């Protein structure tokens, strides 16, 4: 028994490869390296939002009969249970008979049966941790703020411990780019560019988004073909926004996180505060009425005075919230349209002329059946 142990130890000491093949031998000569195959056709897929799957092909030289293939991944973080190993040729008669896992090692051994001695290409798929990905965008908005060019970048950072000398990286939307990526290295690649993308500029008053009552400037892009997008769902990512200036260059005007935007949906991007539009809020009426025992209604009037110090007219969207059971009263005024979004939320659109001329939005409502 000891003799056998020494023999196999000696053989194993020479075993430094990532993957090795040994033909099944009787007794002592279990590990007998036949090939040291390199990685071929490596593909790294990012189509799942949280998980990266790596596929690589290797050509193994197999003997007729049972072959033992050792695969180890020390120093990298591969999900052992996710490993799939199979011949590339779907009609291949070569079969994987079993998988054995040694204790305390990032390694396994496949037992493979080959019907004849030959070289055969295998594909190895596994989930790999610590390959980070980020999506970001760069929008350059036209001077009239009605269109933009929209660039989509994909950034990968390799902390996996593995090295990709030459690999195809595939994004969620199927874009492929071929790069080498060393451990610790990061790369950012332009994967899509869309021109003449329509955008809508909005001024928003929303105390839930801006607690000081300042006006938010938003761009809204629709991810649709007739708006210049709509080719792919837009991944979550940072959008940096620039605007063409009169000098023929661009200036950075703000950035925001763009949420995942399926085809047909809107992406709303806040670029900052519109300082030339000011809103002053006053509670004009706050009365209790219609008391019944411990139950009462309230009569409330909220007034918003808006001043637009720009030269031209601006439309401001007010998003206001009232809890519980309530009804808007007919004496509300100062808006061009309103929409009750849900029980708690109402939106008013208010036209505000330029040059500081004040406009008042009067929101009159009664909250019912309070106790």
């Amino acid at each position, binding site marked *: 028994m000891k003799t056998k142990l020494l023999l196999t130890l000696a053989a194993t000491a020479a075993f430094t490869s990532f993957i090795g093949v040994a033909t099944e031998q009787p007794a002592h000569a279990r590990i007998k390296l036949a090939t040291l195959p390199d990685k071929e056709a490596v593909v790294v897929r990012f189509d799942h939002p949280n998980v990266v799957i790596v596929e690589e092909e290797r050509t193994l030289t197999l003997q007729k009969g049972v072959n033992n293939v050792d695969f180890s991944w020390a120093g990298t973080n591969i999900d052992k249970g996710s490993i799939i190993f199979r011949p590339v040729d779907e009609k291949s008669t070569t079969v994987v008979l079993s*998988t054995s896992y040694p204790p305390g090692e990032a390694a396994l051994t496949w037992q493979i049966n080959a019907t004849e001695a030959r070289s055969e290409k295998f594909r190895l798929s596994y989930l790999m941790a610590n390959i980070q990905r980020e999506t970001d965008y760069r929008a350059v908005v036209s001077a009239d703020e009605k269109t933009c060019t929209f660039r989509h970048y994909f950034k990968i950072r390799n902390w996996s411990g593995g090295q990709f000398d030459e690999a195809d990286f595939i994004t969620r939307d199927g874009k492929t780019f071929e790069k080498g990526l060393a451990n610790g290295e990061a790369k950012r690649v332009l994967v899509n560019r869309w021109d003449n993308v329509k955008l809508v500029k909005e001024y928003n008053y929303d105390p839930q988004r801006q607690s000081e009552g300042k006006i938010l400037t938003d761009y809204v892009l629709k991810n649709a073909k007739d708006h210049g997008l709509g080719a792919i769902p837009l991944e979550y990512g940072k959008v940096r926004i620039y605007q063409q200036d009169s000098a023929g260059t661009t200036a950075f005007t703000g950035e925001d996180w763009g949420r995942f935007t399926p085809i047909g949906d809107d992406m709303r991007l806040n670029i900052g505060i519109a300082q030339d539009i000011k809103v002053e809020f006053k509670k004009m009426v706050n009365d209790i009425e219609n008391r019944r025992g411990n139950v009462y209604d309230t009569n409330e009037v909220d007034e918003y005075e808006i001043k637009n110090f720009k030269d031209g007219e601006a439309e401001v969207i007010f998003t206001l919230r009232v809890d519980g059971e309530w009804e808007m009263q007919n004496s509300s005024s100062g808006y061009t349209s309103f929409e009750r979004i*849900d029980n*708690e939320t109402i939106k008013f659109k208010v036209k505000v002329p330029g040059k500081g001329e004040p406009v008042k939005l009067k929101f009159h409502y009664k909250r019912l059946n309070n106790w």
Partner: protein
Amino acid sequence: MKYATIIFALLLAAPLVAKEELVTLPSRDSVQLTIYNSEDLTLVREVRTLSFRQGNNRLQFSWANTLIDPTSVEFMPVGAEAAKELELLDTSFPAQGHEMLIWTVACTKAAAYKVEISYFTSGISWSAEYHGVVAPDERSMELTAFVTVHNNSGEDYEDAQVRLVVGTINLVEKIIDLATPPQPGGGGARRPGPPLPPSAARRAAGPQDDADAEENEDGMRRPKEIEKVGLSEYYIYTVEGRETVPNRWSKRLKSFTVAGVPLKTVYRYEPAKFGWEFTKVLEFKNDEDHKLGKEPLPNGIVRLYKDAGGGRLSWMGALASKYIPKKDEVKVNVGADPECTMKLKRTRTQKKDLTFNQRWLQGWTQVDTYELELRNFRDREVEVEVHQAFGGDFDFSGEGWERHDAQTHKWKLTLKAAETRKASYSVTTRMGTNARK
């Protein structure tokens, strides 16, 4: 090769104080492992051929550094002749060691006989795993099932017949507690396993020497069959041929592969089953219509991949599956899909029928109106099922909804590609003294 040894010694029949003499160290003729997945329990049956002298023979059986339950060790002659000539007179557990016993066996005719030693051991387990490769249209998948045997028992089992039990058995005491009592007697903590041999030696001692396949007529190997047979409330999976599972190793074998299992994709909002998320669920049945149904599917990890074309795979998700009986349906939750969304909002709330007791409110009825919006951003039709549950004394009103149970109503529909659908419903809830039940 063993790292922890079961020592089996035949001692000379002699006065109690006599010095013990080692006569034989017989190896196993055969060994069978019956491994349970619901408990840390394996039944080991091993057959050995022992030489007996006429008269009383004392057999020492010891199992240092293993996780064998001493209360379960049994001795049984094998075959009619052995049964006739051998008789177990007594079993002694010496005071000096927990991991040893001595049998006194009377033999009427000196000869070599086969005997079976059986015992329970802790530390050997098995688990099921599944790989599903879903077709690009999500209408079918290739399902491959694996069983993996894990040996942490402290003992190597070479050329063992392996049987795996699917089912939940009742044990009143854990085998690990029986295997490791503090000295002497009583329950105790798990001991560390035996020291590992050097890595290279372990690899050398690996599984390669056994055959994980059966030979065809042409001498070529194929994956081993795993035969499944029902037994009472359990299923026994018997792995074809013999397996070697060294201590601390695991070995995975394919149980079956079925291609073209019909699959249905349903987007579901069912908090009771899938949590508070509108989620994509892949569904099939463990029956013949789905090319399955030959045996129950033991609980295990299901890993789902999607066919990305050209034999390549992309990742869909993984989840822990429960035991799935034959004919039962399987619902695999692959998580939220941002390309099919649900939004629920309360569009109005009103209170009415207020009742008072001496000017204090004691009852009212609340009417809440909701709007559900479903959006399919995908380029294909999808099925959707939404459940909404309510408590208390309530009435539900909504077109297209059906009652699921006392608390729950559901809406089932098909959304075309890029379609948005809305459904409203209202819930009238009688509160306080207005409640009738």
